[in-house]
């Protein structure tokens, strides 16, 4: 059983924090993850900055641009994850990026490097499920990496089952039709959508992401899901801080209290 499966089996109300690798400064990644872990975060999603992140809103676009300007590369990110793994064993780490990054690195080489560095799961939002199944699934599963696919309010039941079949670890349930960082509060409509997913008897548990920004939205998502993912709100919080560690602890305390 890998780290993601054990965590979800053991714990409820899982808090997954998204960070952009190399942001605010290139070498902050390791420090931020250690600080998040100490503050009680259950899982980490590390964004691999991309020049043209189609699914991301302005906050993550901005952090990605800054990280790229800081000189971050995929190999830097793998190195940072190896550094994290020297001290932190149990915390599941997921990397998120766009398929073109994997293509240029070499998909198989990327998967091998990720597994060797201590990555547990991958989120590649523009990798089509059928192409994954046909070309990359065997290798991914051999390496015991979890490929995590997204579902949205527009995804049909049939397709949810197809995606569930291809997914390992957990399903990433996008809370509403939006790019990341849209903070419109979660509404009744979304609750019935979460409830529908919860009742579908899928093989995978699910986490809710996009639009989760504070304790209220986190708690609401956790009523239906195994946990939730916070990205843009956290990136915003650490943008201009003079004390990264303190800001991180305060941010997490507010969510978890």
């Amino acid at each position, binding site marked *: 059983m890998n780290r993601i499966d054990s965590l979800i089996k053991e714990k409820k109300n899982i808090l997954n924090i998204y960070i952009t690798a190399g942001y605010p400064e290139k070498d902050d990644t390791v420090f931020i993850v250690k600080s998040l872990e100490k503050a009680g975060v259950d899982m980490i999603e590390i964004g691999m900055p991309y020049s043209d992140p189609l699914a991301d809103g302005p906050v993550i676009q901005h952090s990605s641009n800054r990280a790229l300007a800081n000189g971050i590369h995929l190999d830097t990110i793998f190195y940072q994850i190896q550094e994290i793994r020297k001290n932190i064993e149990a915390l599941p780490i997921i990397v998120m990026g766009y398929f073109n990054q994997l293509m*240029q690195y070499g998909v198989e080489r990327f998967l091998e490097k990720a597994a060797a560095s201590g990555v547990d799961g991958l989120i590649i939002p523009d990798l*089509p499920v059928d192409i994954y199944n046909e070309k990359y699934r065997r290798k991914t599963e051999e390496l015991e990496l979890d490929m995590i696919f997204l579902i949205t309010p527009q995804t*049909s039941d049939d397709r949810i089952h197809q995606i569930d079949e291809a997914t390992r670890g957990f399903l990433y349930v996008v809370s509403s*039709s*939006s*790019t990341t960082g849209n903070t419109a509060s979660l509404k009744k409509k979304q609750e019935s959508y979460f409830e529908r997913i919860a009742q579908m008897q899928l093989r995978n548990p699910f986490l809710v992401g996009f639009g989760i920004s504070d304790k209220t939205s986190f708690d609401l998502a956790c009523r239906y899901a195994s946990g939730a993912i916070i990205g843009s709100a956290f990136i915003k919080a650490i943008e201009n801080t003079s004390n990264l560690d303190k800001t991180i602890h305060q941010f997490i305390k507010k969510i978890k209290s």
Partner: protein
Amino acid sequence: MKYQVDKNGFYGKFGGAFIPELLYSNVEYLKEHYLNIIQDTSFKKEFKMLLKDYAGRPTPLYFAKRLSAKYNTNIFLKREDLNHTGAHKINNTIGQILLAKRLGKKRIIAETGAGQHGVATATVSALMGLQCIVYMGEVDMKRQAPNVARMEMLGAEVRPAISGSKTLKDATNEAIRDWINHPEDTYYLIGSVVGPHPYPDMVARFQSVISEEMKYQMKEKTGSENPDKIIACVGGGSNAAGAFYHYLENESVELIAVEAEGMGIKSGKTAATTQTGTEGIIHGSKTLLMQNNDGQIIEPYSLSAGLDYPGIGPLHAFLFKSHRGKFLGATDKEALQAAFELTRMEGIIPALESAHALAVLPKIKLKKEETVIINLSGRGDKDMQTYSSNLNALKNNF
């Protein structure tokens, strides 16, 4: 049919739909239904009527006598510049707006580079009484200001794209994000043969009216449907796709695509994708694009806003790799000079984009008995500021 898209949306290994799940249901619905809708008799009738009575088709195929004499060959200009709104872009926007109406969509979004597609989209949105939002790079809004004014006059909201190089690529990113945020009421009206399947095929089909007309016009004028060469500029590649479409399978017709070299392919300021690009994914399509080793997309450059794009449509990537198409380039300077030459020899001011196609005439071998069609994709009104500021230099070189 070697050069048609396959059932999964690929031209050889190029194309497909590499899109986030957030766009899947819209794109999948289009993929399942676009052929039925656009091949329906009532659709075809309405499309044809609007092309004729509204856009002003067929556009003339004009024998350019003085230009032919200079290059010692027979040059015909396909006058897409004479379409309503001033470019070939209207062919596609009429087709897609009719599709959007049949899908019951209320809100139209589009990206634009030179503003020609934005104007054409704003135009058909006004015609159909639909809300229209056009994303345009901030840099392009400045250099193509007359088109921004036209879009606003037509009732469209022009939203600046302020990320990246603030040009066409970034406007496209913003339009895609808008679509993600409004999946139910919004139709994304893409302006070129780019984006996820079925867009490249759909846009090529709507633009194919260009080569459909060329065939009978050539037959009338020369006795043969087939020219020896067809030359068209390529940014994303919609006018080239339309001009090549009905000749794709006829390999005796040489297809020449001209990319924007900007300040030169070694200058780092270029948009010549086949010369400087590699295989990857841009805007949901597997194709050739300009990128670094990490797969980060490189900001392109061309003086011409319509060609200032770091990729090409998947059909063109396939034409390039299969050698069915010959890909050449023209620099900013060469295009400006070619625009001036056409203006002074034929009394036609071309769009800076189309001028790139004209600019390869001195670079290719032409025979006296040969026939060459240049797709004059648009007119130069929008580029007058650029032309005026270069006028003295152009006169001196002419």
